[in-house]
Structure formats: structure tokens, C-alpha cells
């Protein structure tokens, strides 16, 4: 899948087991995501290099997913920033609204299974550079 749809993926997740799982599932599809543990690290990573997809947990230490999304949307416009997908175990009442208002593009509920993940990846935009190379 990664050959057809080359994406630079950043994963923000603080739970070690869940990091292992997402690496396993994405790795099986041919992706090698970069991993960070909280919102502050997400911003630092995005300043270092461009990504096509940010797959982020909501509840993280230091800076949570909603706050991180707000910061990203302030710093980069829609063309420059990655597609923001929130991956969470459970949505608290009102969190759905909060996420969309903050600028999250898509919400996925854990468990992060292969089929919904694949569908989500299909919705990502292939970077222009990779497209012209083919």
C-alpha cells in the first residue's frame, strides 16, 4: 500500500503497547511512521519536517490532542499541515464537537483495526512531489 500511496506519517501516542501495535499494523502496510509521545513533541516534529498524516491520541501528557490540533492550525494553513486524524479509545461527551471545532479532519475509534485504518489512509492526499516522481 505504501508504494501506491507513499505517505509520511507521524504518530502521537503515549501508551507503549499502542505504539507497538500501530507500528506493527502500519508496518505491515509498508509504512514506517515516526513516533512522538505528546503534543509538544508533535509541534517540534512538524517544525523539523513535513508530514502528510498525523495520527494522534487525544489524551496525552504535556499537551493533549485537541490543544495540539489548535496549535497546528494556528501555525500552518490547510495546504501546509498534515491531515489530522484523532485515534482514541473513547470519546467523552462533547469531545467529538471539540475535536472538529479545533480542526481535526477525522476521528477514528480504537481499536485501530486494519480495515478502518486502510480506509482512513486512502482518504489522505498523496504529496505532490511523490506524485510527479511516478
Amino acid at each position, binding site marked *: 500500500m505504501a508504494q501506491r500511496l507513499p505517505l509520511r506519517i507521524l504518530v502521537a501516542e503515549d501508551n507503549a503497547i499502542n505504539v*507497538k*501495535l500501530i507500528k*506493527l499494523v502500519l508496518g*505491515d502496510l509498508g509504512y514506517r511512521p515516526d513516533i512522538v509521545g505528546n503534543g509538544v513533541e508533535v509541534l517540534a516534529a512538524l517544525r523539523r519536517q513535513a508530514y502528510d498524516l498525523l495520527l494522534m491520541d487525544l489524551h496525552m501528557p504535556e499537551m493533549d490532542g485537541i490543544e495540539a490540533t489548535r496549535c497546528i492550525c494556528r501555525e500552518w494553513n490547510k495546504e501546509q499541515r498534515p491531515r489530522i486524524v484523532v485515534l482514541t*479509545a473513547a470519546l467523552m*461527551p*462533547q469531545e467529538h464537537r471539540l475535536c472538529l471545532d479545533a480542526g481535526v479532519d477525522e476521528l477514528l475509534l480504537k481499536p485501530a483495526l486494519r480495515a478502518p485504518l486502510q480506509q482512513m489512509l486512502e482518504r489522505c492526499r498523496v504529496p505532490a512531489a511523490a506524485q510527479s516522481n511516478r
Partner: protein
Amino acid sequence: MQIYRDLLEAMPDAIVVGDAAGRIVQVNSQAERLFASSRSALIGEPIEQLLSEPGRAQHAEAVARILAHRRVQGTHATLELNALRRDGREFAARINLAPLEIEMGTCIVCAVRDVSERQRLQQSLHNSRRLKSEFFGHMSHELGTPLNGIIGFAEFLLEGKSGTLNEQQRECLEDILGSGRRLLRLISQIMELARVEAGTLELNAQTFSLRGLIEEACSAAGLTAQNKRVAIHRNLAPGLDAVTLDRERLLQVLDYLLTNAIKFSSEGREIHLSVTAQGDAALCVRIWDSGTVKRSAELEQLFTSYPQADVSAIRRFGGTGLDLVLARRIVEGQNGAFFIESEPGQGSAFTLILPCVITSISAAAGLSAPL
């Protein structure tokens, strides 16, 4: 006149009688206590001095309205505003106003009740409901996180990604996955309950075909039904088709009720689902089964705080009763009504009435076929 005095004294509320000019002409001793004053000090004073400033205009308006309609039988007004004791302290009051015709002319009788305690209790009830919902929300997240690993890894291994599995390994992994999914369903139901109780249920009305919805609900429950050899008979009233209401919520309620009906049916029994119009602005959905008899006490328990009281039923069916609690709450959240009937030896029937727009009643015949 003595009878009149005695009557005022017999009232549980503080009574203040004012004349048409707004001066106090009579009070009972409950009023003396409530406003921390004496009868002699109160009589002759403007009645609005017993109210805190923001409520005075509202009170004056209500009095004017009552005086204008004083000849109309049953004229009265109820106000909830802050009253003012003579020592300067305010309290939340509920005031009932009514006209009174006596020799000296038209008066206004005000029955005043201190409702600050009731308001405080309501606020604290509201707070504890909110805290409970938040607690459920946090717990669900905490439970869901490790479950992500359990289900995710089991699925990964079952796909054969790390080598071929032998029969026993496959069977064990399927059990892990199955158990994980059951737990996940339970957690999402608890979340749903928290959402419903917090009053944040979002509704999206859309126009859709009932026929399609019924098929979808029955096919979702179909596999479980087949495994238990339970047949689902469905019946849509002839001509009834397009309606406007929240499709996903109705599908969810049907799913809960069908799942529950299948769970409580013994093997080889039948479940009936019928959908009819209730007047021209409501839908009536009825699901009845020929399953295990439920005692009425048990049914009562289904809707109290902890749903399924009978431990043996939990063991037999692995349920929590959350299905029914949620179905009822979702229906009531849309101003609908939800009924349960249970006949010993016959089984149970669940009926829900949902207000909706019946968009079209087509000429086509209804469907009636077993699954």
C-alpha cells in the same frame, strides 16, 4: 374577620396581602418569620420592598396583569425571584399571586415560599449527575486503552501476519478477539449512557425508507438469531414508508431491542417486529418475543440504577440489561415513549412511540416475511 385571620394563619406559606396601590394590608405570622419583621412594621409598607431590585419590575407587571383580569375566574401568576428579608438577606422565593375582592376593594394575595433549599439540592443533583457522567467517560477511556492492544494484536495474529497458525492457536485467538469485542460493546454502551445522561445526545433528523431500515436492523441481528435458530418476523404497515427522524438512533434502538430479545429467547423461538403509524405524526415500533418469562419485579429492576438484578440471568445470558436502559433513554431523549409488557408464560413486548414526520405513505404493500 376572625375566620379570615385564622385562615391566613392556617396556611403553610407566608401570606402577604397587598392593596391595589401596592401597600401591604395584611400578613400572617409565617410571613413575619420569613421576612424577619413584625406585622406592625410590615403593614402600610410598599410590598415591593420585600423583593430584591431585579425582580420588582416582573412583580409589578404580574400584579397589573392580575388586576386587569381580576374578573376572570382562576386568574393567578407564579413568579420565581429573589425576595428580600428586612435584615437585608436575599432568598430564592416562589410567589403565587391571586386577586381577592373584599370590602376595601381588590387586593392581591401573595403566597411566598422559600425555595433556596430546593434550588441548592437541584444544583447539587445536577453537579453529581455531571460528575458521574465524567467519571463514566474517564473510566471508559481507561478501559478502552488496554482493550485496544488486546483486540488489535489478536486481529493481527489471526491474519497470519506472523506465521501460519495451528487450529488450537486460531481458536484461542478467536476467543480473545470475541471476548475483547464483547467488552468493547459494553464500554461503548456505558459511554453512550454517559452521553445520554449528560444531555449531549446529538440528533440528526433525515428522511429515509423504513423498509430499508428494518432490513438493515434485522440483518445486523441475523447472525446471532441464526445461531440460536430464532426467527425474526417483520411487518411494516401497508403504505408506510418514508419518515423523517434520526435514522442512526432508531437503528441503534432496534439493534438493542432485537439483541435483547434474541438473548432472552430460548432456541427455536420467534421474535416479531412490527412498525405502524401512530396517528399522522408518530411511529409505533413493537418488538415481542416468546422467550424467557420475566417477572414484573425483574422488569422494574431493568430500569433502575443497576439494571440486571438477577445474577443467574447474567450467568445464563451474559447481559447487563444496559441494552434496554439505553433503548429507553434514547427514545425518551427524542420525546418518545417506551413501554414494556410482560405476560407470564408468554414473553415480553417492547413498544416505542417516536414523534416524527411521516413524509409519504406510498401505495405499495407492506412487507411481511420471516428472516
